């Protein structure tokens, strides 16, 4: 089973690659549409702003390939900005069209806390049956670095939520074959590595 790690210039793939290796993934870096279309699963990482991320994906026609792959049920895991880009619209420095894999928006947190939220926060699990969450419990801690969050229209999209200064946001997504984490599992020690292992071993590829 081949996992395509989508390389579109949005941040550092060093630690994502290392976590995929740890999880025993057979992966390659995908910089072209055909490399996305032939994958069994996709990982969409990302650090940076929504518009830079979308521009990176559009530049090499990667966004169309991702939509096409997801339409034929290829599982995808979006990480941090990667998850935010899966929404319909992003409101970071203007209004930007997203990948629209999940209906809803990415907007700024409404929190009493400082922004960016930087550090370890815990989760409240909403979908214990999600294959991404095997071995993960409510109150497990993950490492977050972000100012923006996703607001899926359908509340059933959230597999877990997290509270930061009064804003309870979607911290893990699991909806059909579409997955995402707002935190960085590759920076979240043992609990984070479990998320990668679950995506690699426990999430089934398209039939």
């Amino acid at each position, binding site marked *: 089973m081949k996992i395509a790690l989508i390389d579109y210039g949005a941040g550092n793939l060093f630690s994502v690659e290392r976590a995929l290796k740890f999880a025993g993934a057979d992966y390659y870096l995908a910089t072209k549409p055909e490399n996305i279309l032939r994958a069994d699963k996709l990982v969409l990482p990302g650090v940076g702003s929504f518009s830079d991320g979308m521009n990176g994906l559009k530049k090499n026609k990667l966004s169309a390939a991702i939509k096409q792959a997801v339409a034929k049920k290829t599982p995808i895991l979006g990480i941090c900005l990667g998850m935010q880009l899966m929404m319909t619209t992003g409101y970071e420095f203007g209004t930007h069209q997203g990948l629209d894999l999940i209906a809803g928006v990415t907007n700024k947190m409404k929190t009493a806390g400082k922004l960016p939220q930087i550090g370890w*926060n815990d989760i409240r699990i909403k979908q214990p049956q999600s294959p991404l969450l095997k071995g993960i419990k409510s109150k497990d801690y993950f490492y977050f670095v972000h100012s923006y969050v996703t607001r899926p229209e359908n509340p059933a999209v959230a597999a877990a939520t997290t509270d930061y200064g009064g804003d309870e946001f979607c911290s893990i997504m699991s909806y059909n074959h579409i997955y995402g984490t707002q935190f960085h599992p590759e920076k979240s020690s043992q609990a984070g590595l479990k998320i990668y292992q679950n995506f690699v071993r426990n999430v089934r590829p398209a039939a």
Partner: protein
Amino acid sequence: MLTLRIIPKLEVKNENLIKGIHLEGLRIVGKPETAALKYAQDGADELIYIDLVASLYRRQNWINIVKRTARQIYVPLTVGGGIRSVDDAKIFMRAGADKVAINTAIVKNPRLISAVSQKFGCQAMVASLEVQKKLDGSYELYTDSGRTPTGIDPIAWAKKVVSLGAGEILLTFIHQDGTYTGYDLILLEKIAKTVPVPVIASGGAGTIDHLVAAYKAGADALAIASMLHFNKISVKTIKQKLKTKKIPIRI
């Protein structure tokens, strides 16, 4: 709930983990990679690596230390010391750093803050402020590992670095560093309440009470060095003790 981060700070000189007092009088304590791995396994929330020599001649050795360390830990790593440009930052981000801490170069060229922030995201741009308390009780910003006074007021500078795009502030109290007498709570509180980004307090931690006091003064994260490096206490014990004091901590 977001937790208080406990961050071992490892200062490195010529491939050795060292620790001094007031950023001077340096003593070798071991190999940084060995200590980094132990701290990470013990529950450290992040790690900070500072190269105290930062000479171009030895830079490749330093990059290799960062690479070896980043390969074996699964928590965020901040690297500082001698980063003067976006290209320098890129070298360390590629080597596996998640953030860079910059002190001297952003004082000389504040636009570097915006450039690094735009290139890697504001979360990767940690403004490192080294501060000395003067005899009259006022504070002054220093550069070059506490060697060069700048005449700059640290509070005004803290506001400026945030306005230019720094995502976090590493606030080091030179006058407290290595003394085990506690963080400078007065300045910590002023800066933590002034800036909208997280503040990491650094310099002076000696007891659990010092850590609790810094949390109450508004620190979002605590850098700890001597207490850990000289095996006075482990990361795990620190975190357990803080937890019993009702401070939000990841165990």
